[in-house]
């Protein structure tokens, strides 16, 4: 026992040391850095051959063929090398498990096989806690984020796990060391999980019904009669509620309060005070006070925001069959910005490309596993990603949540490209598309002037087996490898 404890301690301290080593280089001063003669996958536009990329203050200052290297710039000669935007992981549970120490036992199942996203279908009951912030369940102090950054993940999601409405997902800065440093946006998206069961479908249906009602309530004109009616307790109670709705819905966006308990109390005090002010005027109010004061369900409010387009969602769906079931639970006219996330090709329930026409109606992007699929019970390969792309649907790839899986992503992309997916689509699918889904596409995901300098520098083409990832830059700072 004591032996094991000391071992653990040793390893923990070693890990801690490693984490420290991973820290990004000293913050860039005003001195610009210029990459010259590079092949640049801008993703936003054409690939630039022999281009120059200038970064300054963590941002991309200039990119192009004829860009002049500014005086005093630190020059990185990138002849024969390729630069692409940093990877964006739109589905990741890294950090949701406590750091496990098992480096002294060999992993079984090969690289990247250890953690499989298993939150599909059957597991457990369906939750309806849309307003819970997943980041509050994160184990911040662990080396995984640094390890992911080293292999090229410059932005990553923290995805709430489970079906139904497991909570609000976050966007993390992988260089962070604490919760606050890690968190870039602690409510970046609403995670929704489809579960093919009566209970699961009911939760979806009920919550969206409630959200629709909440939206109707919000969109009601704030009734000009309101001030006149105020003295009357009952009718005033309802419209009076309309106002606070807006507030609590927006408040969490600034996102300082803790999740579960907090949102409830916040909306409560507001109406209370306003009513208390009115109360003295009317002695008859106290008994009537209770019904209108029914606190808003923050979970419903979050979904109402979603329906109003103030939030975006990542909708996890396991298969084509599940998508059809979703449509029987939630009407297609319930519209909200979404990306559909499929974590495993499930040919026994239909791969997601079998319902392409429905996906097109949703006008959403689709996050796919970076792999080919097979027809059921055969070895006949199918290419869902290509099929969706050919149908005009934007595709992204789930790049995995372990460093080993991320290292493999380029090999997976290679296979998909060899099977017919255009290379630029493959690159876009791990950068710009997931960035859009996380709402960070204005800041990162492409190489454009003004965006964060989140860059990967490869010795050759990223999609070539000999292209090696040599450098990772996060917001203008070179990420030092711990090795």
């Amino acid at each position, binding site marked *: 026992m004591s032996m094991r404890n000391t071992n653990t301690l040793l390893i923990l301290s070693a890990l801690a040391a490693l984490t420290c080593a991973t820290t990004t280089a000293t913050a860039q001063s005003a001195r610009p850095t210029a990459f010259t003669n590079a092949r640049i996958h801008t993703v936003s536009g054409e690939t630039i051959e022999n281009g120059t990329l200038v970064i300054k203050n963590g941002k991309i200052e200039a990119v192009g063929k004829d860009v002049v290297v500014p005086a005093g710039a630190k020059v990185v000669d990138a002849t024969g090398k390729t630069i692409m935007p940093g990877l964006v992981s739109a589905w990741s549970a890294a950090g949701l498990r406590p750091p496990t120490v098992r480096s002294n036992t060999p992993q079984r199942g090969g690289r990247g096989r250890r953690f499989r996203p298993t939150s599909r279908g059957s597991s457990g009951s369906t939750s309806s806690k849309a307003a819970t912030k997943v980041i509050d369940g994160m184990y911040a102090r662990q080396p995984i984020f640094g390890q992911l950054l080293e292999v090229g993940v410059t932005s990553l999601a923290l995805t709430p796990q489970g079906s139904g409405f497991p909570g609000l997902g976050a966007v993390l800065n992988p260089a962070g060391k604490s919760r606050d440093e890690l968190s870039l946006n602690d409510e970046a998206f609403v995670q929704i999980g489809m579960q*093919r*069961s*009566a209970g*699961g*479908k009911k939760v979806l249906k009920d919550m969206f019904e409630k959200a629709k009602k909440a939206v109707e309530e919000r969109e009601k004109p704030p009734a000009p009669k309101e001030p006149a009616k105020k003295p009357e307790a009952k009718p005033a109670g309802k419209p009076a509620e309309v106002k606070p709705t807006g507030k609590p819905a927006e408040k969490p966006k600034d996102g300082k309060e803790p999740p579960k308990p907090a949102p409830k109390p916040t909306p409560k005090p507001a109406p209370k005070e306003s009513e208390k002010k009115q109360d003295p005027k009317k002695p008859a109010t106290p008994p009537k006070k209770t019904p209108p004061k029914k606190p808003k369900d923050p979970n419903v409010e979050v979904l109402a925001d979603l329906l109003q387009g103030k939030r975006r969602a990542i909708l996890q769906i396991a*298969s*084509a*069959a599940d998508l*059809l*079931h979703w*449509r*029987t639970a939630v009407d297609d006219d319930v519209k909200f910005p979404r990306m559909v996330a499929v974590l495993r090709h499930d*040919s*026994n*329930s*239909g791969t997601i490309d*079998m319902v392409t026409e429905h996906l097109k109606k949703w006008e959403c992007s689709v996050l796919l596993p970076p792999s080919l699929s097979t*027809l*059921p*019970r*055969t070895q*006949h390969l199918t290419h869902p990603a290509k099929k969706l792309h050919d149908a005009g649907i934007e595709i992204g790839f789930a790049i995995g949540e372990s460093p080993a899986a991320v290292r493999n992503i380029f090999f997976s992309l290679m296979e998909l490209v060899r099977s017919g997916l255009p290379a630029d689509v493959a690159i876009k699918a791990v950068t710009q598309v997931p960035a859009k889904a996380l709402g960070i596409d204005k800041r990162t995901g492409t190489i454009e002037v003004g965006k964060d300098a989140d860059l990967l520098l490869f010795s050759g083409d990223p999609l070539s087996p000999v292209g090696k990832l040599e450098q990772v830059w996060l917001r203008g700072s070179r990420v030092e490898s711990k090795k």
Partner: protein
Amino acid sequence: MRTPTLFVLSLALLTALDLPGQGRRRGRPTRATPTPTAAPEPKQEEKKKEPKKYTAIVGGDVYLGTGQRLTGATVLIADDKIDKVGHNLELPEGTTIIDAKGKTVSPGFVIVKGAGMGAGFSAPFKDTVNPFAFDIKQGLAAGITSFLAGSTSSRGRIGGSNAVIKLAYGDVEGMVLSENSVVGISVPLDRSAREKLETSIKAAKDYLVATEAYPAAKAKDPKAKAPKKPSGSDQIISVLQDKARLWISFGGGGFNPFRGMMGGGGSNSDVASIREACEIAELFGKGAVIEKPMNAWLIPDEIAATGSSVIISPRTRQAPDPKDPERTGSNIATAAILAKAGVPVAVTCPDGRFGGGGVGTNGILGQDLNTPNVDVAYAIRGGLDDRKALRAITLDAANIMGVGDRVGSIEAGKDADILILDGDPLHYSTFVITAVVNGKVVYEKAKEALYRHIARPKY
């Protein structure tokens, strides 16, 4: 050469004569069954605003499933229903035409008990069906378009949770035809269970009588109380109201490890048990469905007298008791004998030794189980009339599941679940060329990897 001739239908079928013995069928008058599926209906109404989509299957020899055959006829499908059947039909403009010249057209096969093929394991089935399950295609390739999934028996009391599933590939809402159109009980019942059943049937009947009389009573006396529904009687009432069919199975005799080895439910189905099943049917006053009564061939008239139907597994064998070989054991002629007595018969496959108990693609026996015409071939070999044999896997099977008003035959107004075959529907080497479910083509032999490489042997 001998074997094929056994199966090929005689040309005499061209006559539209009804089947002999049918007049003796009692107890279940053709009922204007209330459709249990409420959910899909409103959707269809919404869609009605759109012009109907017409499909016509032209020129095939159409087995209507009622016993009739029309040569070179046309089946016109409007959306998901059969619009018209006949010769020289006028086709609306824009009709999609499927050529069936030189082929046969038959109602989709209806299987009284199945598993897999996209059905979930428990109710509510509509929330768990998998419309992209691979075995749906396998089932369609075998001609199956509907089957009953779930449990139908419950020991000691009426129970069961099941649904009639359609093999509507890719269509979640089209897959569940009805939920719980069958309730079951297994015999023998012990004395207390029997007494309890008798009391609850009586209470349910009284309740129904009282309910019927209630509006009149209320008119006289506005204070009259509405009759109270006896608790736990829903399933009994649904049988009494013809909303569900009662299935009676055998095997309530406790755990029997050898049951599977003996070929399933037949082990307890001696004459005494079958008589008990008949008694229960008479308690209800409704024809029941007796599941796999191995000795039914001994008392066909008694079964017929109750208006009951029977599910037979013609492939199942049970050795006779050596002490009384003349009056025990299975009989290959069971289906024929029962049919002759006027009992509607449906066929199913034997229970698998390692599970099964229904037509499906699961289990160690694999895919060969889901070929309904092969199962019915055994009954034909035992003397079952060809027309009745087809009914045993179409209309009679549908009636047995309580969905005879929706599926089982090619008649105007019914669901468009239709097979186009390259030969006699009952012939063992016949392949399904095209399967249509709810008016949509869901299987084409030439396009699926299953059997496209096999040509039908010519004789």
